[in-house]
């Protein structure tokens, strides 16, 4: 099953490679990984999307917890949560009607953030599924470049995940 794991860790050089190294050394799967500092510059927040049986995800959680730099680990699947991913996508408008692409962008609530004679660059946020669906909906030949941020996740409700 797909799990979204959220972690807080010391914002130290090398902390990222500890997490990435753990996943590769123990043959855990990473679908995406995002990391950036939080409101506290000493603490980074990371979101890892992984896939695995319950036993494997339990091991992932335990192994992450064991890393000295890691302050807190939460499996967002255990709580109600929101996930979002940002995608920037460059679409050729040479062959297709520009209107058609614009219409699709509207339906998916994206924004066109750059325009040239032959291309649109579209910004879109949403769940992974939504971004996948947009890509599906586009004629494959029109896609020139896709940049996805990887998933960020946060729990719903009052309670923050805190160090």
């Amino acid at each position, binding site marked *: 099953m797909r799990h979204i794991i959220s972690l807080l*860790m*010391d914002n130290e*050089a*090398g902390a990222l*490679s*500890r997490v990435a*190294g753990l996943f590769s*050394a123990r043959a855990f799967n990473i679908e995406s990984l995002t990391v950036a500092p939080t409101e506290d510059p000493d603490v980074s927040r990371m979101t890892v999307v992984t896939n695995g049986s319950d*036993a494997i995800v*339990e*091991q992932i959680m*335990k*192994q992450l*917890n*064991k890393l*000295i*730099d*890691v*302050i807190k680990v939460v499996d967002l699947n255990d709580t109600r949560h929101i996930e979002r991913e940002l995608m920037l996508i460059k679409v050729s408008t040479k062959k297709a009607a520009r209107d058609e692409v614009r219409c699709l962008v509207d339906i998916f609530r994206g924004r066109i953030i750059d325009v040239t004679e032959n291309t649109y660059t579209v910004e879109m946020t949403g769940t992974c599924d939504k971004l996948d669906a947009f890509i599906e909906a586009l004629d494959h030949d029109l896609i020139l470049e896709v940049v996805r941020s990887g998933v960020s996740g946060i729990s719903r409700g009052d309670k923050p995940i805190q*160090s």
Partner: protein
Amino acid sequence: MAKNKEILRGADIFCRALKDEGVKHLFGYPGGAVLHIYDALYKQDAVEHILVRHEQGATHAADGYARATGKPGVVLVTSGPGATNAVTGIATAYLDSIPLVVFTGQVPRAMIGNDAFQEVDSIGITRPCVKHNFLVKDVKDLATTIKKAFYIATSGRPGPVVVDIPKDVTADSCEYEYPKTVVMPSYKPVLKGHPGQIKKAADLILAAKKPMIYSGGGVILGESSKELREFTKLLGYPITNTLMGLGAYKATDKQFVGMLGMHGTYEANMAMHQCDVLIAIGVRFDDRVTGDLEKFCPNAKIIHIDVDPSSIAKNVPVDVPIVGDVKHVLKDLIGLLKADIKNLDKKVIKPWWKQIDEWRAIDCLKFDRTTDVIKPQYVIEKLWELTKGDAYVTSDVGQHQMWAAQFYKFDKPRRWINSGGLGTMGFGIPAAMGVKMAFPDETVACISGEASLVMCIQELSTCLQYNTGIKILSLNNRYMGMVRQWQEFFYDKRYSHSYMEALPDFVKMAESYGHVGMRIEKTSDVEGAIKEALALKDRTVLMDFVTDQTENVYPMIGAGKGHHEMHLSTDIKRELA
């Protein structure tokens, strides 16, 4: 105004911090990046530096020291090749959860990343085989980092910590103060187990009809041998120890059924297979212990006590997990059991003991005592007798290691020192050296094979320099015996590259290093030789026992087999048939 603190150079801070940490011995080897530190070491005498002959030797010596004393082993090596040479020893300590603090020199900060002379990314290289590592980027962080390194290495589930120090940091100066404690919000090892879980465990334990206690290295690392003994005696249940756990329980006690696992005793493995409640204490269900997981303890409810949550349910699902320090948990458990012990009907497990005694009667470790060709098992048995079971024994890796584990009956913890997890050939001699430095008045023996022996042979020079009298028993079968055994069993006797040709004259070799060498070729000479070697109190002696070339380690559980599917020796099989 706070009183003025001393201003010290990084290199002096290093020495002072070790002193303030209580470090007595530092195993090291110099080089460019650590020359400031070596200069500072020269000017102090609180920490004794032991000059090894290879950085692998430094890490194994510090490791042996740590295993024997329970205190962290401390190592200093230079950047680049110094650090890479140390990696095998760091990984060895990591796999057995041994507390080491390894200081590696690094090129000056401004040169990091430039492929500078003797630069490697020591942090990157060691990351997967350390509990944690640090690059010290500012001399102001040096003392605190050293404190943290010792704290991390020795607390919770212990392990090696690497501290990488750029050369210019050791030249910079700042105020020195060694912190008394460190607070790390992200690192808080648990001590106490969950009371509800401990109660559940106690109930399960008292209800068992075929109980089995399976304890490991965690009991030794957690200094809870005393509690383990009390627990086991209180219940009267059978106990087995892992390779890493030998000595935690008295091997000569009736309740001890021997080591378990790939080369465990028949009775220990059969009891594992048939038990109904398994009490796993400070173990990690290693594949060499469990055999095929599909067939592991098919009828047992499993209780698992360990300080590392990630050890629990990693390989085997567990019914009652208890995360906590083994000592604390065992104490709590003993408390509960004592209150309820009147409910324990010792008659219930009588048939279980009867069954175990029947398995025991097979005498699975039996070997031929009639031949004049030296049987390796006999050598170890004699060593055990002549040292009254009280020596510190290190080993290398191979058949001799398994025979040492089977035939030297360890009654005390921290006496049996071997590389269980990584299985590092070359561990024995430097480890013995480290133990002897910690306990100069004790007998320290190293049981080795002629292949392993030469992997760190250079440390014989260190033994001479520091007058470290260790007794090396090499079981010389002119084969990489363990490799040969697998080739005999599983590769149709194709002995591919497992034969040791062009062996040196070990007697002359020992002598050339300034030690005593002996070659022993007949069974009848074994006892006399060991006696003579032991009598040479302060000398290092290398005993080259020419042993039976084709002897195998039995019992053996092959790949994909369960505990009940052991190979037994042909003699025993014949008797059973």
